């Protein structure tokens, strides 16, 4: 019990310190590093919502980056073709990603484990190839210009916008995980048949979590698109979902803190090693292979154990948000 309380207060201290640090960030970060932070926050949202699917529900979807791109494209295409306002674009992004997420959820409803990963991957590649092929409508590889949210492109406003967005969406996901839904989806992951026998409406919650996570990715994608102001099919590529998987695994799969540590770590390392070009991804993938082979709990767990050792406490056994 004591460990649990300690672990919780430790979490609060860490979260508080991180929030203050991020809020004060622009005081000492230049535009370039503010941009890096924005990208990190975008990937945190993406990775955390993917963790909800893969880590907590066992739905190893490989179409998550597709929903982020769909959010951006839904809004961008509405604005480009119909000249609507950005607010309408946002509504379109939410509706399209929620709708597509629900339909994909229906398609993969009966599929388990690997089967689901294969089907979502086929979906994701098909979407990428469609967007590239329908270039008359989507402008394909030439790129679709998207208006920016603010009149200036200086990153500072986006910085706080993304911070608020990240905190809001993480809180929402945290609350879902704390609610009975969190127990339902973990039960589904561990043993779907047993969950069903215990009265969990597996169909309903699997569809819910797929729609929910897809919509979150769509919202993140919408804001990101209006920040980078240009969209191309590259953001749907396998490298993107690969990056998200790497971030989550790096931090710890099925651990709420995992993506929060993994995403910024990977984004920042990737910026620092930018000069090495493609060697970047070569290194990450090697790191992931090594982590998977030798330390499967991920960085979050590693730090937790380390900090607790530092304070002379045993590692927490039953943290409610990790398994």
């Amino acid at each position, binding site marked *: 019990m004591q460990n649990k309380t300690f672990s919780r207060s430790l979490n609060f201290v860490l979260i508080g310190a991180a929030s203050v640090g991020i809020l004060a960030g622009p005081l000492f970060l230049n535009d370039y590093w503010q941009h890096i932070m924005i990208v990190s926050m975008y990937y945190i949202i993406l990775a955390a919502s993917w963790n909800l699917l893969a880590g907590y529900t066992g739905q190893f979807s490989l179409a998550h980056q597709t929903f982020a791109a769909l959010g951006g494209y839904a809004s961008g295409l509405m604005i480009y073709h119909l000249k609507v306002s950005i607010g309408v674009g946002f509504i379109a992004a939410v509706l399209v990603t929620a709708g597509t997420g629900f339909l994909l959820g229906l398609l993969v409803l009966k599929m388990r484990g690997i*089967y689901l990963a294969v089907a979502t991957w*086929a979906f994701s*590649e098909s979407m990428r*190839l469609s967007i590239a092929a*329908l270039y008359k409508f989507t402008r394909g590889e030439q790129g679709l210009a998207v208006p920016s949210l603010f009149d200036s492109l200086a990153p500072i406003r986006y910085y706080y916008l993304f911070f608020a967005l990240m905190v809001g969406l993480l809180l929402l996901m945290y609350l879902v995980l704390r609610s009975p839904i969190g127990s339902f989806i973990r039960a589904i992951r561990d043993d779907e048949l047993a969950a069903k026998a215990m009265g969990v409406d597996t169909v309903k919650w699997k569809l819910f979590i797929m729609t929910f996570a897809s919509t979150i990715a769509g919202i993140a994608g919408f804001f990101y698109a209006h920040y980078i102001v240009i969209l191309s099919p590259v953001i749907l590529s396998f490298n993107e979902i690969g990056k998200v998987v*790497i971030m989550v695994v790096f931090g710890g*799969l099925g651990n709420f803190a995992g993506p929060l540590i993994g995403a910024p770590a990977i984004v920042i390392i990737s910026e620092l090693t930018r000069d090495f070009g493609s060697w970047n991804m*070569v290194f990450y*993938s*090697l790191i992931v292979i090594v982590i998977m082979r030798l330390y499967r709990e991920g960085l979050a767990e590693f730090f937790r154990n380390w900090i607790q050792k530092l304070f002379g406490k045993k590692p927490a056994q039953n943290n409610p948000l990790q398994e």
Partner: protein
Amino acid sequence: MNVTPELFLNFLIAGIMIGALYALMAMGITFIYSIMKMINWAMGEFYMIGSYAQWFLVSFFFGSAFWFLGVLATAVILFLVGLVVQWLLIRPMFSTGMERKDEYGTVVTIALALFLRNLATVLSGPNTRSPDIDLGRIMIGGLPVSGNRFAAFLGALIIIGLFYYLLNYTWLGRAFRAGSQNRVGIQTVGINVLRIDQIAFAIGVTLAGLAGALLAPVFNVFPENGAVTTMKGFEIIIIGGMGSLPGAALGGLLLGIVESLGSVFIDTGLRNVYGFIFLIIVLLIKPTGLFGEKERLS
């Protein structure tokens, strides 16, 4: 466009020919799945390695006249690579009593895919290469067909035939089939199941690499050339039913035909998307795929 019976026949043949290559890829994926119950996400990268090996061997060793020697050498190379990769990454899944094997297998092979793909980009640059093989055109029933495609088709048929023979008429094939039914069972009769896994993985990736080598002159050689073919391989195993080799073969042919006819009658640009639409239709009619059996829940 004016659609004549000849045109229809022409595209039907083209579809069947490319379908045989897709079937090769899908059989590799489904074979590995049937023994180890894991999906190798790096399959497209083994296809890529196969195509690079073929390009390299034909350009620097055998010359374009002896391209088939390149295919044979590629098979040997891929088999050895498969043995090593399985030993390093996949074997610990079974030898260390790991929990949540699915998750490990998926993440590790996705990382392997990214590793190999980006390594290829670093080493060879994003340039597109093509082995200098030109077998001209041949006529089938009065219709012209690209010689390279026809050679790839024949090669795929021969490989599928050999694979069929291996599975059904040899001791090793019997061990594979037994292993796919019951992993514990084959250990009790004295078969080293870890060795069977290793050989099965190597054979599976060799099939993908052979598809890459045969298609190298048709679809060119570049670091991401495996992606589209893998996607089709995955679509096929869902269409055909997971773990079913006849399903993979038939699914491959059907996908080739659907794509070929779709691109002539509807829109060429969407060629790579018809497979997914076809997949949805098949799943709506038969949720387990054509040859799939309803999975028993534990």
